[in-house]
């Protein structure tokens, strides 16, 4: 396992650092500008009515005519840029092996060593979880530092941040393990990336579609954002156990399926 983790560290340290810095920058900027932009939300709702259902879809609650400081904070955690950075990292990371390794032919060298596929899967998982925690950690640092200096109303309560992080990381687990499953079934990384991206896009859009089109509402449960609700956490101050359980169970199912497929499949680079 140490050898595999050494390899993963060498391959992913710079991308992880860059994604972390990117997230920190975006979260810092959002922390700084959101109170100003969303402070005038009533005017925006009047000028562009479509904004309201979009924000409702993102937050999971109706923002009414004005956004409270809490809602403004919640918007930071569901902002599409924040989610995109996190998901982009996951898609890149989780399709590295085996799809990426098969695609570039290096799997022959790797599996020519005494490395079991199970161990490979576990090592990749350890790297993926650690990298997620590092990226989110750097991102939050950007948010906290900016909130303290520039936007007092965005200063988060530690308890709420911990609950939101639990929800965010359980979504991270669900998305990443789904990407691992697609990767385990694929011989081509680009194809795997395309499939995961398409699934996420559909899942994301389903959430919005449900706001405008009634027949889509029953399907909204298939949207990943249905189970990631920072606004609700801020309103209730409670840990969203149900959502976290759904996300983690989905993640566990995808992850186990990926491990079984990887263990049983034939690997052919020629």
């Amino acid at each position, binding site marked *: 396992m140490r*050898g595999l983790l*050494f390899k993963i560290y060498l391959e992913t340290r710079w991308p992880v650092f860059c994604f972390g810095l990117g997230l920190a920058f975006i979260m810092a900027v959002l922390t700084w500008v959101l109170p100003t932009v969303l402070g005038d939300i009533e005017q925006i709702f009047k000028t562009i009515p479509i904004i309201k259902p979009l924000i409702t879809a993102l937050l999971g609650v109706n923002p009414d005519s004005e956004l409270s400081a809490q809602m403004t904070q919640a918007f930071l955690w569901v902002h599409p840029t924040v989610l995109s950075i996190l998901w982009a990292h996951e898609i890149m990371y989780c399709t590295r092996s085996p799809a990426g390794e098969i695609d570039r032919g290096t799997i*022959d060298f790797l599996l*020519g060593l005494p490395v079991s596929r199970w161990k490979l899967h576990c090592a990749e998982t350890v790297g993926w979880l650690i990298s997620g925690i590092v990226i989110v950690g750097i991102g939050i640092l950007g948010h906290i530092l900016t909130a303290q200096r520039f936007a007092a109303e965005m200063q988060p309560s530690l308890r709420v941040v911990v609950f939101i992080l639990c929800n965010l990381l359980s979504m991270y687990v669900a998305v990443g393990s789904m990407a691992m499953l697609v990767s385990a079934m694929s011989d081509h990384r680009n194809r795997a990336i395309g499939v995961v991206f398409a699934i996420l896009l559909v899942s994301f859009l389903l959430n919005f579609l449900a706001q405008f089109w009634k027949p889509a509402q029953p399907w909204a449960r298939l949207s990943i954002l249905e189970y990631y609700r920072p606004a609700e956490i801020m309103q209730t101050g409670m840990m969203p156990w149900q959502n976290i359980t759904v996300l983690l169970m989905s993640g566990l199912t995808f992850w186990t399926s990926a491990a079984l497929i990887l263990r*049983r499949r034939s690997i052919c680079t020629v």
Partner: protein
Amino acid sequence: MSAIETQHLTKSYGARRGIRDIELSVNPGEIFGFLGPNGAGKSTTIRVLLGFLKASSGSATILGHDCWKDSTHARQVIGYVSGDIRLYPWLTLDRALKFVGLVRKTDIRPFGLELAERFQLERHVPVGRMSKGNRQKLGLILALAHRPQVAILDEPTSGLDPLMQDVLGECLREMADEGRTVFFSSHTLSEVETLCKRIAIVRDGSIVACEDLDTLRNQAPRIVRITFESAIAASSVQWPDFVRLQQHRKAVCELQINGSAVKFISWAAGQPIVDISVSRPNLETVFRKFYEDRQPGGA
């Protein structure tokens, strides 16, 4: 116990040709040649041996370890390199020795550096800036640095210059002298001929011959060049049935003989011949013979 053993090993890819009923038994300390043209099934066989592919039927073991169910243990005793090796662009020799050493849980650095010296490979150049030949050298060093009990080499000389091919040959002979096994797959006949004592020839996914090289040579037709006293003598000669005339230029005839050369020499003694040369049948002749035999039914 055989170092490598397969029984009725079959891998089918649906419509695509795979391998059928491969029966191999490679002894410890042997350098075993595995010959066949591109697409014959050499790499598929090797990939089954390494546990990359699951066999459709049959079994394969390496030093008693099942190649699918127990492939991690099998690969503990194997060193593998392919001809078209793809390595991580960030690997340098030093990093690679550290990485492979950590995975194998053994210090492969001392022998790895010794091999690097023999192969004249620089230590700090990353794979991304290496030539194909140097990448191949690095692959070979990583495959041999842990002194494997069984080396499985799939067209390993690809990209190596003749001097480095000689160095590899030396390393493999040393391995065999120490009782370790080499499974050497190639379509380059000359290198197999110089290294191996026993070979298997694979064609259309099946083994068509698995013999000592000397036995195969004896089966091969020989080329004989005879110079007669005159062109008239050459054109009026009555050829026996075990001789096939291939070329005839004035007084010089090039023949192919099947069977013992002694029989031919007895016949030639009574002919008006001024010179005769009998070539040693080489592996290429044998190889081509096996490939010609597939017509007309083969692909």
